[in-house]
């Protein structure tokens, strides 16, 4: 497997009146072809900004301050807007949380899908429409020949998300960024969408970054998991390891906060306090003020270090570390 996407030292900062918001502050990861990475974090951890940075969707006052994003060896930081337009939707596609954000309410699904095909390829309208119908069928929309003539408001939330996924698949992209694609959906519909995505990823060999706050959803779909806190990845590893034997106290705290893991009726082992403002990060490890294992040495920023095979954590005293390492 070769690296499809290499992100090195990515820093995306927002310059606002109150100061510099370091939304993403040094993120590194590598994604192989066909790999599914779960990017987990709470609101404000920088997970969405990180994925928007990959697509070049950061608008002023935000900008990529430092770092490199290599997609199939090509540098995306500083690439021309024209080149990014070529890549977006063709090689890298995105599925957003709210499908109403990707679909315009005033155009038919058909118009929107055909337009997406024609933006990247010189084919006839008829061929573009045929392909659109085909992908709609693949994502499980019943009688796609008829439904393609409908407007977004005629579709339910789950069906709209299927349309959004279908649009992302039109050009068989090498990478799909999915930003909380099931968060707005009901449990049974979420199950349908996850099943659909699992199937599609295997069928097409597409790599995917699944951004979510829900560790349980991520575990069902991802090969590896990266946990973000205050703009940095604090733990990254195979999903079984990260969730089964977390190395970073924050990951452990997140897992302990999930009600179904504690005996019903017992107090949850909560993380005290709340996420720090990215404008005023505490010195050293940003998690240390909430960490129950904090020690004086935490006042210097910890480097990211290996804690097991393919498993890294940004903590000076990682939990569950393998003795051999």
């Amino acid at each position, binding site marked *: 497997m070769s690296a499809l996407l290499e992100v090195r030292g990515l820093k995306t900062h927002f310059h606002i009146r109150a100061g510099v918001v370091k939304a993403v502050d040094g993120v590194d990861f590598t994604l192989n072809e066909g790999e599914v990475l779960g990017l987990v974090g*709470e*609101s404000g951890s920088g997970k969405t900004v990180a994925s928007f940075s990959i697509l070049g969707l950061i608008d002023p006052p935000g900008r990529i301050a430092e770092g490199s994003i290599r997609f199939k060896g090509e540098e995306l930081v500083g690439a021309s807007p024209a080149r990014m337009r070529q890549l977006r939707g063709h090689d890298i596609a995105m599925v957003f949380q709210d499908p109403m954000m990707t679909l315009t309410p005033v155009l038919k699904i058909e118009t929107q899908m055909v337009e997406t095909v024609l933006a990247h390829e010189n084919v006839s309208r008829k061929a573009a429409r045929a392909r659109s119908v085909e992908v709609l069928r693949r994502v499980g929309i019943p009688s796609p020949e008829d439904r393609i003539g409908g407007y977004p408001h005629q579709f*339910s939330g*789950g*069906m709209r998300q299927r349309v959004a996924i279908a649009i992302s698949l039109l050009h068989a992209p090498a990478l799909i960024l999915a930003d909380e694609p099931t968060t707005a959906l*009901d*449990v*049974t*519909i*979420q*199950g*349908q969408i*996850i*099943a659909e995505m*699992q199937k599609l990823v295997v069928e097409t060999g597409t790599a995917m970054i699944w951004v979510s*706050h*829900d*560790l*349980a*959803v991520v*575990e*069902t*779909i*991802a090969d590896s998991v990266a946990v973000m806190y205050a703009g940095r990845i604090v733990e990254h590893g195979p*999903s*079984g390891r990260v*969730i*089964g034997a977390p190395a970073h106290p924050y990951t452990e*705290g*997140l*897992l*302990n*906060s*999930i*009600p*179904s*893991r*504690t005996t*019903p*009726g017992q*107090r*949850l*082992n*909560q*993380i*005290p306090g*709340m*996420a720090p403002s990215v404008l005023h990060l505490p010195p050293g490890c940003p998690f240390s003020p909430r960490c129950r294992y904090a020690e004086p040495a935490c006042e210097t920023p910890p480097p990211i270090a290996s804690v097991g095979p393919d498993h890294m954590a940004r903590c000076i005293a990682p939990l569950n570390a393998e003795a051999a390492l």
Partner: protein
Amino acid sequence: MTVPHVSLENVSKIFTRKPDFAERIAISLGLPKPPEVRAVDGVSLDVAYGEALGLVGESGCGKSTLGRIVAGVHAKSAGQFRFDGKEEGTWTTKDAERARLDIQMIFQDPMSSLNPRKRIVDIIGEAPVVHGMAAARDKEKLVGDLMQEVGLDPGYARRFPHQFSGGQRQRIGIARALAVQPKFLVCDESVAALDVSIQAQVLNLFMDLREGRGLTYLFISHDLGVIEHLTDRVAIMYLGKIVEVGPTAEIFAGPAHPYTHALLDEAPRVGRGRRAYIPLKGELPSPLAPPPGCRFHTRCPHAMPICSAEEPKLDALSPGRVAACHLHNTTD
């Protein structure tokens, strides 16, 4: 048998649209009336003193409407509502006031349920002063105590809602509800908008309050993990009807209704690992035109001919446990 804290009998809520001028003419000429939505359709449910009852279902199943009927936000269209054993129709003004104060509601989105132009001290302190539970001069102290109880710094009492984070705002909403010394809290998706670590803090607060104040809870949520953790009994709703009720532990161990089974099966849970999904087919039918017979039969993997013809009744399966499904109908 002891009197339940809150008891619903055959409660329905029908939402209709008022016909406009042209439609009124059309109706008078014999055309059909605009469609009505039966958001809640003949629901009977008891909540005992000190109990935490969970209400689970997908969007549009009527769980929020039912919660609002209990909290007095919506008036019911039909059926009987009893509080402390007294039916709503027989309430005196005093009974009504007591019921409305005793049952308080905590909403999903704390930002849209707090007045952005008011200071916290007024948001929390207004109701007890209006209702004569506290003198105006004691307001600051009362608010300070309440803020302490829900884990907020009383020094922030003069601030406005926008100066707080989502989790803190939810605590303000809880303090406001507690200010009138309620006995019964209706929590409508009260932790759904919060991050996992903050959600855990608020859930702990709910559990502490239950112990400290002996509250009764009606906890409405789509998150099965939260329900399993917090409640003693659970009721599952589908398209305006209750399909299963029973002790939470029993239902989570062995659901009787196929819909409950599907819900539990599909909720992603940490620790199950990567797995293939066998999702439930189809979507929730429109409540404007619910399917005949059992409302779940269009999506049910066990559907039989009888399911589309006859509506199943809630049958007792074991003490305290009922389900509305023809699979369990042993009487005929």
